[in-house]
């Protein structure tokens, strides 16, 4: 068959299947990410059907998917929100980092994947899925709850941590020497802080530069700017994703809101392809051997996220049920864990088992995370003894 026809048929079939999977996910009220990953596993290397024609397209689309994911993450919070979030909740943020990075890093060492592996797996276990958490908060009607700002500020901190972590990771994955690594990390940190300062002071000018009343012009401006900044960042070894993230932070106010609305369908498409592409590159037969470890890691890091949420909520005077809700909302891992694993896989600096472990890990927690958020509080109420001070009669 004509290669173009083959590619179109494969791509069409895959996107159509993704549509079915997303609908199924919506029907049973879960995040579509695990289903996309499973879809990718089924079609990829060693899967049920092997797709060859769309490989190149899937790869580039996946990259764009990551850029859009990070761009929209940046759009979600304004620079001012990031700063106040950092000032007010850095203790919780640091606890979150320590408690959730270490289990992943430790396991990577234990399995003999070295420092690079530890850096990658630590990142995978550290970062909660802000997409799943936001959906859980909205779906369960918890926007007005008192623990919600606590959860959100931890997510904000994680996003900022990502801005530092991703360039560092990119450097390490590139295998630069220690001194060269330090220089790149220094450049990365300087760029990140500079962009944050510019975003805080002159965010409206960046917004003005891309803004347009015409939605077509606006979309092209946004996408062009994002790809340009991402490409430049990548050329400077700061990681393409971080460039897009910084651009997202710099765009603020009404422009950011409109940008989110306009980019959402594109993000959904490209991110879905990214998850599939990640799955495509993972051999399903490599998952069963690491499933046990993924399960152990999932249980431990679910507990550590829970502890983080409980501690942070307790600190601001939230009562016991709210502490459990806060902790459980943070458990879900998703898109950004896969982004980290994807970067690592693309660099070729990590063993294939790590990608398989990350896939299994995200599959587990993306499915159980929302369930935990829903049922942790009633479960805690049923299992744990009532607090000493009796509730109002």
């Amino acid at each position: 068959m004509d290669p173009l026809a083959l590619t179109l048929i494969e791509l069409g079939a895959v996107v159509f299947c993704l549509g079915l999977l997303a609908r199924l996910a919506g029907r049973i009220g879960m995040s579509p990410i695990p289903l996309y990953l499973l879809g990718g596993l089924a079609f990829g290397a060693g899967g049920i059907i092997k797709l060859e024609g769309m490989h190149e397209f899937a790869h580039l689309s996946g990259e764009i998917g990551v850029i859009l994911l990070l761009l929209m993450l940046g759009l979600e919070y304004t620079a001012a929100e990031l700063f106040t979030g950092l000032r007010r909740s850095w203790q919780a943020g640091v606890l979150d980092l320590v408690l959730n990075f270490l289990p992943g890093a430790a396991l990577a060492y234990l399995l003999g994947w070295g420092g690079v592996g530890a850096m990658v797996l630590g990142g995978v276990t550290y970062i909660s899925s802000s997409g799943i958490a936001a959906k859980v908060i909205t779906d369960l009607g918890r926007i007005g709850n008192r623990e919600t700002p606590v959860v959100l500020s931890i997510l904000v901190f994680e996003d900022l941590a990502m801005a530092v972590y991703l360039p560092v990771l990119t450097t390490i994955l590139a295998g630069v020497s220690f001194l060269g690594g330090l220089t790149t990390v220094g450049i990365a940190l300087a760029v990140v802080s500079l962009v944050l300062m510019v975003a805080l002071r002159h965010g409206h000018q960046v917004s003005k530069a891309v803004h347009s009343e015409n939605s077509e012009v606006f979309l092209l401006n946004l996408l062009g700017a994002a790809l340009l900044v991402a490409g430049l960042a990548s050329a400077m070894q700061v990681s393409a994703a971080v460039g897009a993230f910084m651009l997202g932070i710099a765009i603020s106010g009404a422009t950011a809101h409109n940008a989110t609305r306009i980019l959402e369908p594109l993000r959904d498409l490209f991110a879905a392809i990214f998850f599939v592409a990640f799955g495509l590159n993972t051999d399903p037969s490599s998952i069963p051997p690491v499933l046990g470890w993924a399960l152990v890691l999932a249980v431990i890091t679910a507990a550590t996220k829970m502890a983080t949420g409980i501690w942070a909520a307790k600190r601001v005077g939230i009562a016991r049920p709210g502490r459990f809700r806060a902790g459980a909302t943070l458990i879900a891992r998703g898109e950004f864990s896969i982004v980290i694993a994807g970067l690592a896989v693309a660099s070729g600096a990590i063993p294939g088992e790590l990608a398989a472990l990350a896939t299994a890990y995200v599959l587990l927690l993306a499915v159980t995370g929302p369930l935990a958020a829903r049922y942790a509080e009633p479960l805690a109420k049923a299992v744990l003894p009532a607090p000493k001070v009796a509730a109002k009669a």
Partner: protein
Amino acid sequence: MNVDETNLPGLGRRKDFMTASGRRIGVVELREGQTELIVSTWDDPDTCQASIPLTAEEAATLGNLLGGQHLAMKLSEEHKDVPGIVTRQFSITPDSPFQNQPMGKACIRTRCGVSIVAIMREGEVLPSPGPDVVLHTGDLLIAVGTQEGLDTAADILRNG
């Protein structure tokens, strides 16, 4: 009254306060522009028993109802020494013959001796409205008069 304002990064803003009965009540203003009314459960003030999405019009009407109550109570308090004078609120329903008409057309003072002392509209108070003020659906009229006069005024506003 101490209203707490909390930023919800990425979502919007929450404004709420504790009532004397121990419930937290307030609104969440979402970044997309919607408003939600939130009420906490009685046993856990951290959580919400209900979060009710309100359109701009519904929010304004609710504001009128609550604010009008407050204004009416204050007015009653002020002329409690004058026997026979009562304060009452009338809302302009969509089927009222006077919606989108100047208030003077209803001739309320001439016909029943009732004074419209204020109009609550979208959470704002229009004090001492003149006869030229155009009435809209959802407006809440604060009226002062005798019991019988107010009954007549209610009938006028409803049936013309």
